[in-house]
């Protein structure tokens, strides 16, 4: 006898509803607040840590020579281009004298005129001197009146003064002429040292003012990196420490260097310590000035101490610490931290011992009452 119709239907209905119900219970338990928090756990190990400091800086030249005219003028010619090597004393270019030559001629003419005035004054003075002497004798002979003699004496004094003035005037004009001639000589731009032309800021025909740089010459041997380290992570930075430099354009070729000096003046605005890093060997080809460089300064390794990954650190009630796993339960352990390295390992000074198990990664924030589920890696994280 076959099953009664209703029983068969009941069974079929159960076959559909039962899995649905089971699924529902699974869904209700596995999602939402009832689900345990997935965490990963690591054991605290006692390990030495080699702290390092990371900073960035720009490539700079220690000595930069900005060469330009000492007074305004038009650039006549400029013989060097950016990248040219120059020798000390080499003429790099010249400023157009404009009216300087004419002013020299005018000055010469003025000098000549002044010399003529001088000669005239000499003649006047000698005549006045002669007259004064003669009238003096006449006074002695009681021929001339006392009043006339005094007049001649005064004429002589005036002629003396005029002569002195004319003489000084020629001296002045002569000096002015010499100044113009010197300036004429200063129109040439001369390299002060052996070096490399780093920039050429004006081209012939450009009018430049006094003090404006026309070419910039740098000393390639004096390249260094102006590095900045955040003050909060600059502990242990000292002159002489080895450093690794990575130029932005050559990030696959780290260069060796060392800390030359820590600047006595830090940047108060950016809260950074400024240091100069020199290359052990000048890089070739030379990096462009202003290129960004990443600097890693390796400090000496510290003795072994309990070490944890920095990802394990949490803040609970304002205290920094880690979640210890004790018999499957969580307990928060405040810690005080020592030095850390750039790979995120931190030494614990107090609060943890080697061998304790702590939570590193967690799906969400943990509390003392959280149920946890220890996993190899959190869901959603690619291996």
């Amino acid at each position, binding site marked *: 006898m076959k099953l009664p119709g209703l029983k068969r239907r009941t069974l079929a*209905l159960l076959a559909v509803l039962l899995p649905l119900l089971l699924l529902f219970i699974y869904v209700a338990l596995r999602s939402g607040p009832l689900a345990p928090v997935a965490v990963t756990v690591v054991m605290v190990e006692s390990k030495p840590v080699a702290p390092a400091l990371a900073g960035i800086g720009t490539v700079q030249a220690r000595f930069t020579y900005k060469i330009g005219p000492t007074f305004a003028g038009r650039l006549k010619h400029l013989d060097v281009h950016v990248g040219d090597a120059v020798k000390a004393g080499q003429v790099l270019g010249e400023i157009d004298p404009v009216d300087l030559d004419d002013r020299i001629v005018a000055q010469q003419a003025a000098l000549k005129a002044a010399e003529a005035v001088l000669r005239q004054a000499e003649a006047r003075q000698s005549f006045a001197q002669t007259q004064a002497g003669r009238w003096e004798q006449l006074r002695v002979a009681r021929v001339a009146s006392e009043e006339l003699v005094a007049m001649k004496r005064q004429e002589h004094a005036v002629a003396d003064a005029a002569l002195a003035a004319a003489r000084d005037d020629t001296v002045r004009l002569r000096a002015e002429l010499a100044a113009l001639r010197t300036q004429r000589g200063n129109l040439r731009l001369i390299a002060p040292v052996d070096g490399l032309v780093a920039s050429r800021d004006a081209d012939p025909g450009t*009018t430049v003012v006094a003090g404006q740089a026309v070419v910039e010459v740098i000393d390639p041997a004096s390249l260094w990196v102006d590095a900045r380290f955040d003050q909060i992570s600059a502990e242990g930075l000292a002159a002489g420490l080895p450093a690794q430099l990575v130029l932005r354009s050559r990030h696959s070729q780290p260069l060796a260097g060392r800390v030359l000096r820590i600047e006595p003046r830090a940047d108060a605005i950016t809260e950074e310590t400024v240091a100069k890093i020199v290359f052990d060997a000048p890089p070739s080809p030379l990096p462009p000035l202003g290129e960004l460089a990443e600097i890693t300064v390796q400090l000496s390794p510290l003795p072994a101490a309990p070490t944890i990954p920095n990802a394990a*650190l949490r803040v609970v009630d*304002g205290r920094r610490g880690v979640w210890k796993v004790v018999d499957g339960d969580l307990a928060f352990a405040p810690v005080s931290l020592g030095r850390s390295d750039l790979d995120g390992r931190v030494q614990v000074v107090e609060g943890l011992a080697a061998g304790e198990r702590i939570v590193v990664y967690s799906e969400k924030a943990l509390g003392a009452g959280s149920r946890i589920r220890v996993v190899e890696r959190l869901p959603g994280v690619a291996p």
Partner: protein
Amino acid sequence: MISLAGRDILHAWGKFIFTGVGLGLLIGVTLTMAGVYRGMVDDGRVLLDNSGADLWVVQRDTLGPYAESSSIPDDLWRSIRTMPGVAQAANVTYLTMQVGRGEAEPGGARVDVRAMVVGIAAGGPGTPGWPPQLAAGRQITRGHYEAVADLASGLRLGEVVKIRRNHYTVVGLTRRMVSASGDPMIFIPLKDAQEAQFLKDNDAVLMQRRRSEANPAFNRPGVPGLLDAVIAAQTSNPSVNAVLVRIRPGYGVEEVAEPIRRWQRVTVYGRAQMEEILVGKLIATSAKQIAMFLVILAAVSAAIVAFIIYTLTMDKIREIAVLKLIGTRNRTIAAMILQQALVLGVIGFVVGKIAATFAAPLFPKYVLLVPIDSIIGFCVVLAICVLSSIVSIRLALAVDPAAAIGG
């Protein structure tokens, strides 16, 4: 007495299951909709939780830093740090932007990820603004060019992302660290972030420089060096969006906030106010939108349940007449229809809950299904079933038992 409703359901179980599943998918959409709203609220909450702050110091009279832009000097934190009751104060910047993926790899096509770039002050894990916990990798250790990204961005450990002009190596991954609008967060050192906020890209920098050069006020022949100074001033950014403050234990929120507000001439928000801004203001419109949808979906569900029950009743109108003729009480017939509606609702709810739970992770934005929503949803579904069966019950009760007698 046997259960007439149960027997009818057993008899037409296929119809019931399929209708229930159909209704269930509709309920699933409704639950998911509620989940979308909860997710939005939760996005706001986790944003606040993850900042680890008790107070937010922002530009005066702004709703910053999440709901409005806010800009305060980056050295303000020092003065705030010295205020009474302040345990920690840290600068932070927030900038939602497109982050380039894949461009750093040779031959990689640029894929943009919309993300909220968070600039976090140096100081190590636990500083306000830092990600409170990670899902993989490590926290930032270098002061520059390292990033911790959220899993939702799709980034992987070791991947290099381009933010504005600079490349950042992803060293850590987080989970559920999102902005109020659900964009994944990318944490980078504060100084990089300040730069990123200002320096748009190389082209923009060049244009800006040219513009300054072309401006005779800045490029004076008689004043060499002025242009350089102007450009340098233009390309540095001494502001941050907010200062996150952690309060010393034993101090009240207002107790600490009030002196800062008064003496530093800034606006300070506590956790509750911030939540009000994020949940109350930022997502208010979206919440109303979703509420509208929920109302519509509830109406549609009600209509569907009513229609289904109506059809089922219409199919049985002859039998109901017979039942009444042979002396079945009205109460029994009404109970039969009501029970069927409720069973349909229960099947629909179970299917809907399952569907919503499995569909939730597929959504691009976070969908949070909270048990209370499910419970409310269950009650609403049953209420809708009861209400929508009323039409059918009235219909059934109006059937004339004489109709069973032919002629």
